[in-house]
């Protein structure tokens, strides 16, 4: 079997551009998803069951349906409904953010719930308000415990951004598929894409590991 490096070289500029867009989509998904996820997680933890209910529904729906279905609905339904035309990049960012937010909300909730009740009592007994206690005592500790599951979620998000290729957002996988259909080749485009995804997720893991080590006490 011959392996045609020449077509990889030919596609290199597109693959590079696609990689940058993949990084952009993933970063947007991570940032927006994390912010949304925090609010949804806190929403689900509200004592008032009626107020918490919509957040529970949100998490159930977005975790319980395939991301591909969400991407298609948002791309061909939601985005055109609001702006009158399709926009693949916007649709991808919205779908990734909304989907990740549901998972991240659960990570936040679990992280906060894992902090010993005594921590809140200790803080409140000193006169700190509920909000102050959350901000200075509970959330910093919960955040540390959330890093590993958040890292997992971010890695999943990078990989899932490849689904955007079906709505022709010009990210890495889109160019991989373009290359495959132009030359009727399988190994070169998809192996190249796989290696690039692997590098991205490895870099992210290394970053998160060093963050984890930096936050270690003792």
């Amino acid at each position, binding site marked *: 079997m011959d392996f045609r490096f020449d077509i990889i070289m030919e596609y290199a500029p597109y693959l590079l551009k696609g990689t940058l867009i993949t990084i952009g989509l993933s970063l947007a998904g991570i940032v927006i998803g994390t912010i949304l996820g925090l609010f949804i997680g806190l929403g689900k933890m509200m004592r008032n069951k009626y107020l918490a209910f919509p957040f529970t529904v949100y998490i159930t729906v977005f975790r319980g349906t395939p991301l591909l279905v969400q991407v298609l609905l948002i791309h061909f339904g939601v985005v055109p409904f609001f702006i009158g035309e399709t926009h693949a990049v916007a649709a991808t960012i919205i779908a990734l953010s909304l989907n990740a937010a549901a998972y991240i909300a659960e990570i936040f909730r679990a992280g906060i719930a894992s902090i*010993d009740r*005594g*921590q809140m*009592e*200790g*803080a*409140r*007994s*000193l*006169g*700190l*308000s509920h909000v*102050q206690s959350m901000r*200075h*005592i509970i959330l*910093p*500790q919960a955040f*540390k415990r959330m890093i590993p599951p958040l890292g997992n979620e971010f890695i999943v998000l990078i990989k899932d951004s490849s689904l955007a290729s079906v709505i022709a957002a010009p990210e890495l996988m889109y160019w991989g598929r373009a290359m495959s259909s132009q030359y009727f080749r399988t190994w070169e485009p998809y192996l190249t894409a796989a290696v690039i995804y692997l590098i991205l997720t490895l870099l992210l893991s290394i970053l998160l590991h060093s963050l984890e080590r930096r936050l270690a*006490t*003792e």
Partner: protein
Amino acid sequence: MIKVQALRKSFGANEVLKDINVTIKPQEVVVVIGPSGSGKSTFLRCINLLETITAGHILIEGKDITDKQTDINKIRAEVGMVFQHFNLFPHKTVLENIVLAPLKVKKVDKDQAREKALSLLKKVGLEEKANVYPDSLSGGQKQRVAIARALAMEPKIMLFDEPTSALDPEMVGEVLEVMKQLAREGMTMVVVTHEMGFAREVGDRVLFMDGGYIVEENIPKHLFESPQQERTKAFLSKVL
């Protein structure tokens, strides 16, 4: 200083405190003893509203803390609490643990808070531990830091919820020593404990609780040597 009137507390259908009435005078050291499940910890936790009160009133310096108008954070800032499991903040150094509340609640100046914290650490014999994290301390050291942390708010009253129950036996002494010193300095204290020696030596008054009631109260000498109630006698015969 503290006046507890007809205090009741239920957890669901389970009534843990049934009609508690006590008055605690300034500078008094009141020790609460009793079997587990007698409601003594719940009673203590009601004094700074870590438990919501089902019925009755608690007045601290004349202010009814059960009144909805009362700012509970202000009350708690004046009532120090020491827990069985220390409840130190593991992500903050010993010094940060102590200065947090003065900085955030009392808005004390940074240098002043630091100086105060260091002098408190010296008082509990741990000034060299200022910059380590709580995880590297022994249980006794943790509890002494927790006492310093509570004292940093300059409370008028200190509540101790079984402060030595989670400690290895050889570390109980160092914590009791700090508490004795506090008592000598005139701190008003309510101490829930199983340390009968401490109750006898330091307590001005001992309350014996059982089944959600204060069964008997007296000065330590009388309560320990000539208890009047059968339940007190039965309890003391088991622990002394």
